[in-house]
Structures are given as C-alpha cells and as structure tokens.
C-alpha cells in the first residue's frame, strides 16, 4: 500500500535527521575558551584558541597553579611567603635559604632599578604601606607629611646596596626604609611562568591577562589577538587597538588603576621614591610591549615614573621594547615599532 511506504520513508528520513543532529561535530576547536580566576589580587584570565576543551582546561589548570605558586612565594601580603619572611626579618641581618627563583627575580629587579637610576624600586614596601593603596577600604587622604619626611630621611641614610645579595646567596635589607615589594615585577614574572607552562604543554595559541599585565602567543587562526588599550579617563573607553599575532607581552601602568581624590588632587598608586609621593612626570598612562611580561611590567612602571624624555631614553637600552605614552593633556606618543593598528587622541 502506497500509504505505508510513505510512512516508512518518513520514518527513515526522521531517523537520518536525528542521526545527523546527534553526530554533527561540535565546533569547539574553532572557538576561544576562557577561564578566569582571582589571583595576585586581580582577575587573571587565560584564553586559548584552537584547542579542545579538555586539553585547554587541563593545561589552563597547570598555568593557574603556576601563578598560584609564584604568588605564594612572592606576595608580601601572604603571611607564609618567602617575601614576608624577608620583610619580617631584622634589618641588617643576612637571610639565607631563599628560593633561587626569588633571588634571580630580585637580581633582575635591582638591575632594572639601576638602569632607571632609581625610578624603579623593588624596595618600597614601607612607603607603599604608608600610602596604603593596598588597604581595604582604600585610603581617602595622603599620609601625614611628617611620616613621609621620616621615610625620606631614613632612606637618605641608605647605602648604595639597600637590598644586597651576598655572593653566598644570602640577602640583606639595610634599614627600616626598605622592604621588598615585588608588585612592579612579580605579576609579570608570574604571567611569563604561566605562558611557559601553556607552551610547554602544547597550547600554542593563548592570551594571559592579569589585570593589565598581558602576554600573548600565536593567534586566533587567521585572526590576530584583538587587544584594546584603556582610555585613562573613561573606564569603558578605548584609545588604541593592538592587533597582535606574534609572541608579545603588553603591560600598562596608569594613574587610574588605584587612586583617590583629596582636595582636588589625584593620588595614585605609582610612587616616586625620590619624592615619596605619587609620580608626577606628565604622563597618565604608559604601555610597554616587550618579549616578556616581567620586562614589560617593570618598564611600564619605570617609564611612568621617569616621564617622557628620560623614559624613552631608558627604553632604548632594552632591545625589542616599544612604548605608547599618554600625556596629561591626552596627547599620545608612541615608538616606531609599537604595534597599534588604530589609535586616536583620548
């Protein structure tokens, strides 16, 4: 009977449709996968492209664990960290048995400090504590001038090697004006370590973003990573776009990240050791592109403190590092190799 044949045909077609729906390959390989954690006092996101969800999740987990490990060693806010142990030790005393990794990073920090003629300083923990930008709730007024003066006086008495690493791998902090604050370098270092973890485990297209310290590898297939640069005066605005499809690290330092206004003055968290106050160099935002995140992190802070002229001079001594500066009046200047596909005045 004709009717029954039609029924059977329809049944077969529906069966095929069901099979097709069930069996259609999921297109996750073409998509970006992203995961965010709260680490190092900020939101850390890892994004991958072109990897299966299982693989990506597994490797991201390792990378987050690596950041966690670095933070546990280098945060001055964690009571059990090696840095806290150092800061709590009596001044002038040699501290031994420090992790080689930490000593290595401190050496690099000291080197950049020297090259920047002291604008970059990893020994500012006591001054940071005076200002209290890491406090919760954040401060609403600057510390008393006498406290700052006291710190400046104490610091003037420091020997050249305020932070000294002895040949037998011990470390000594000279006096109470100095204490380790790796905030300007450790976040970048952690991002570098996390990226190395991703690459070593076969994740080749990745973006790590740790609250302004960023490192990229690979691309999104035929598309570059599409990065915005924040408008320093409009939280949701973007002043430049960076389309990047090669291994690169980006770090931005700005006067808008942590700040308060008191009597019409903007007090931000990037402190100038020479004045014991927030740096006023005529710049409000500095973005550095480098090969590694640690260098980008340290240089963006250094350039912010040094200002345009001295800053760009320092930058020239670092190969393959580029910068974009935003001045107080909103005008921008960038070095020739800085990757920005579109930028406009803020």
């Amino acid at each position, binding site marked *: 009977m004709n009717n029954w044949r039609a029924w059977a045909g*329809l049944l077969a077609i529906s069966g095929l*449709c069901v099979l097709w729906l069930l069996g259609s390959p999921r297109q*996750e390989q073409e998509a970006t996968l992203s995961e965010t954690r*709260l680490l190092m006092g900020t939101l850390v996101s890892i*994004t991958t492209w072109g990897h299966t969800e299982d693989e990506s999740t597994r490797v991201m987990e390792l990378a987050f664990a690596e950041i966690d490990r670095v933070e546990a060693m280098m945060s001055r806010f964690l009571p059990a960290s090696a840095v806290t142990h150092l800061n709590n030790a009596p001044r002038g005393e040699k501290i031994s048995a420090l992790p080689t990794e930490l000593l290595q990073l401190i050496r690099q920090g000291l080197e950049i400090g020297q090259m920047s003629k002291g604008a970059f300083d990893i020994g500012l923990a006591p001054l940071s504590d005076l200002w209290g930008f890491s406090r919760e709730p*954040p401060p609403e007024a600057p510390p008393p001038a006498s406290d700052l003066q006291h710190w400046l006086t104490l610091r003037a008495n420091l020997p050249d090697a305020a932070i000294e690493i002895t040949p037998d791998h011990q470390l000594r902090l000279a006096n109470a004006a100095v204490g380790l604050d790796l905030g300007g370098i450790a976040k970048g270092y952690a991002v570098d370590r996390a990226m190395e973890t991703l690459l070593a485990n076969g994740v080749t297209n990745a973006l790590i973003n740790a609250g302004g310290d960023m490192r990229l590898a690979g691309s999104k297939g035929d598309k570059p990573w599409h990065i*915005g640069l924040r408008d320093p005066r409009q939280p949701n605005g973007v002043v430049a776009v960076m389309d990047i499809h090669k291994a690169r690290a980006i770090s*931005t330092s700005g006067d808008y990240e942590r700040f308060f206004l008191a009597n019409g003055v903007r007090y931000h968290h990037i402190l100038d050791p020479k004045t014991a106050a927030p740096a006023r160099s005529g710049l409000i935002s500095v973005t550095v592109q480098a090969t590694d995140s640690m260098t980008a992190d340290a240089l963006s802070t250094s350039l912010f403190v040094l200002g345009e002229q001295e800053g760009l001079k320092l930058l020239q001594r670092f190969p393959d590092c580029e910068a974009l500066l935003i001045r107080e009046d909103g005008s921008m200047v960038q070095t020739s190799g800085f990757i920005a596909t579109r930028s406009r005045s803020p």
Partner: protein
Amino acid sequence: MRLLTLLARTTTPGDRVTMALSGMAIVGLMLSTRGDPGQRGVIYRDNRPLMTLTLNQDQKKEVSGKLGAVTIQVEQGRIRLVEYNSPRLIGTRTGWIQEVGQISACVPCGILIKVEGARPKQPPTVEFDAVSQ
C-alpha cells in the same frame, strides 16, 4: 495497531508530512538544547566553588567574603553582587550578568561569580579579547 489504523484512516498524506516534519523539528530543538538545565550562577570563594544558584529563581544569598558578608542577588534570570562599599569591587561596576561565561567579582572579598550553563552555539561577540589597563 488499531491506533495506527485509526490514524491512517483520519489523516491525509499532507497531515502525515506535517506530523513528521513538526515532530522532527521538535526533536531537533530538544537535541539542540539537550542537557541544559538552565543557567546557573556559580559562586567561588578563593577560586573554590562555594554554592550554585539557579537563575530561574529569584533569590538573595549572603556569603562570607574576606571582608565580611557579601550579598548576591538573583532576579529575572540575572545575577549580581549587591553594592559593597569599595571602589575596587569590580562586581559593582559590572552590575547584572546573565550570559554564559560572564563574570563578576569582588576582588578584595575573594568572591567571584560566574554564569555557567550550556555553551552557546554562537559565542557572544566580544569587542576585544582583552583590554590593557
């Protein structure tokens, strides 16, 4: 069999095609949304899941953060961290979130909420992969 006979008697070929096509469309719809129990808001404290709230049900929950209680509100399929007196509370600036993958956080409280659920077929187009700031 008697049912089938009745069905065969009462339907035209057009009816049968309609039944098959609409049935297939519904099965397809079921498969495409399969395993999706609706969206949920997962609350993390120090990156460990603390609780899961279904977004289908309006509710308010207090969770203990590093700096005291944080209120989390679910309303009309959206979730947010309720205003907390800290300029560094990113969650307050984020406001309501409802798309799978969206995140809101109170960094100093150590609290992060994330909308989880079936991954959308068409991932939401975001303007930037990241913003340097």
